[in-house]
């Protein structure tokens, strides 16, 4: 009888312990919805991460988890320590075999990547994050912080990014005394422009510049070249390769920015901070502002 009672008590304790452990385990599992509208569950913070977008690589490192990266996409070159990591392809040609071989517990991707379905079929967890606008940066940082169990670090990073952007914007507006230089930002010689609706356009607006390509034309419209002649910008942002031949385009030698040589060109390293919506947004904004301060009328 005694023996039977103690067995029953032990069984009850065992069941209670098991239930408790299961409950604790359930508490530790966090489910987050990614930007592809999929619910992804995490029972522990991932320790082997692959990023397939430079801005995601930069974000992971900026919140202090660079040592958890086991590979990145081929375009991720910052911070310098990621250059030595294996490169798992590009945006649309990720090397699935390499990814599988590295046994990651999370692959961070962009929403548009076809790789998501392929990884799901292979049982590799992935999480899609779309970062197109300035407003998306804070969301991306906070989400990656939550996934990696680094919410406080992510919060601090977001505060630092916002403070940097606000400070540079305020200084630029103060320096210009209300003057708004008109600007044209060329992303390709076709010509494709960065419109006011693009991430680059948002940075220009924050710096008090007036983009000649309005938001109604879309983020990166292919313009009729006469549009730039007609709107005669004060400053042109253009790649260093294309800048020397700008005056050879029909009618462009009469544009104020070309005549007065008010051109801004950046090295590819600086260009990365301008075109990638990520934690280095303030650096990109400062590069634009420095050039505007130098050449704008």
């Amino acid at each position, binding site marked *: 009888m005694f023996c039977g009672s103690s067995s029953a008590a032990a069984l009850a304790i065992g069941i209670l312990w098991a239930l408790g452990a299961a409950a604790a385990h359930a508490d530790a599992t966090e489910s987050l919805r990614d930007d592809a509208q999929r619910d992804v569950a995490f029972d522990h913070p991932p320790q082997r991460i692959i990023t397939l977008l430079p801005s995601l690589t930069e974000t992971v490192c900026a919140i202090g988890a660079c040592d958890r990266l086991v590979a990145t996409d081929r375009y991720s070159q910052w911070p310098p320590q990621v250059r030595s990591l294996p490169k798992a392809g590009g945006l649309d040609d990720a090397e699935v075999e390499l990814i599988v071989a590295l046994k990651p517990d999370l692959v961070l991707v962009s929403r548009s990547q076809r790789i998501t379905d392929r990884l799901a079929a292979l049982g590799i967890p992935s999480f899609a994050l779309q970062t197109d606008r300035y407003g998306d940066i804070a969301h991306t940082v906070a989400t990656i912080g939550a996934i990696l169990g680094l919410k406080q670090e992510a919060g601090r990073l977001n505060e630092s990014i916002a403070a940097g952007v606000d400070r540079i914007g305020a200084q630029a507006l103060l320096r210009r005394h209300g003057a708004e230089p008109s600007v044209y930002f060329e992303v390709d010689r076709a010509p494709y422009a960065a419109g006011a609706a693009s991430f680059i356009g948002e940075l220009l607006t924050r710096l008090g510049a007036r983009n000649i390509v309005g938001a109604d034309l879309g983020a990166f419209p292919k313009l009729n070249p006469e*549009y730039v*002649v007609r709107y005669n910008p004060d400053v042109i942002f253009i790649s260093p390769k294309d800048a020397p031949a700008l005056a050879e385009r029909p009618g462009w030698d009469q544009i104020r920015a070309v005549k007065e040589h008010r051109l801004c060109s950046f090295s590819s390293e600086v260009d990365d901070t301008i075109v990638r919506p990520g934690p280095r947004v303030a650096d990109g904004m400062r590069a634009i502002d420095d050039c505007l301060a130098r050449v704008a009328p």
Partner: protein
Amino acid sequence: MSAPPTFLGLSVPGIESRSSSRMLLWLAVCLTITMLLTGASLIVGTSSIETSLGWLFAPDAQSSIILWQIRLPRTVGAWFAGALLGLAGAVAQGVFRNRLADPYLLGTASGAALGVTISLLAADTSIAGLAWAGKLGVTAAACIGACAAIALTIMLSRGVLQTANLLLAGIVVAFLLSAVTSLLLLTKPEIWRTMQVFLLGSTGYLSWTSACLLGAVFLICFVPAALLARGLDALSLGEDTAQSLGLSLPMLRLALLGVLSLATATAVGQVGIVGFVGLVAPHLVRETVSVNHRQLLIGAPLCGGALLQAADLVSRWIIRPAELPVGAVTACVGGAYLVFLLWRKSRDE
């Protein structure tokens, strides 16, 4: 006895006067359409038509630049590029005795695309041997690439005598060069956007210099082509018949392929790869008037020029102030026209 009818100093003997009159009427209509399109091109752009009309009658410094330095050379250049493609299409269809032949049959488009890709890649490279290619620019690189592709095609087909060999070599070269272009693009995907614009054609940066160059090359190609028109007529009866008429077939083919190559390479270099104009222009002439090759070689350039001018107008009007690639417009219109031809043929059968 009346003299045979003439146009541009070219007599058209052997053609009934009614047919010649119809051809002259057709040419007059084509020229009128070209004039109207040229006029329209001055008022179609990023501004509204009212604003553009205001600029015409009361121009200031800026509007003068837009009208006379941007819009007019653009439409004149587009006309000459279309004319070159029309001429090249007529020559290609005559040489290959196939009405589905187009100017890109000898691999010119793929060669031009490879030339542009190498030039874009070389612009960023530190390899000294490739630096010269980077300095060429898109226009010269496309032209050199197109010429190299034609040379490769002729080499592979061991001359110009065998039509089937030429066609086969052209297809092989086109596939081969396209594959090399794709492989090179994989190494630097960021040049895709520039390549896309080239592959879909663009008239956006045509200047007076480009228009003059296109015009000069058009004259250089048109005169020998017109002089060789009788040879094309003879060739259309079969190679044996042409030889029995005393024609030197190798010389005739070589000269005509020279015209075809120069016309296509120049047009591709200036406006990128614009599809269907070279294929459709000769068809449009044959559909509306009964012609021999001399008349076709006059009609197809006029028709091609007007076609590309119209496509240019549509491309800059439809989503202004942004613009569509002109090659996408010609592909839509040309494709629809060919579908119509097929539908009509099947209906008639």
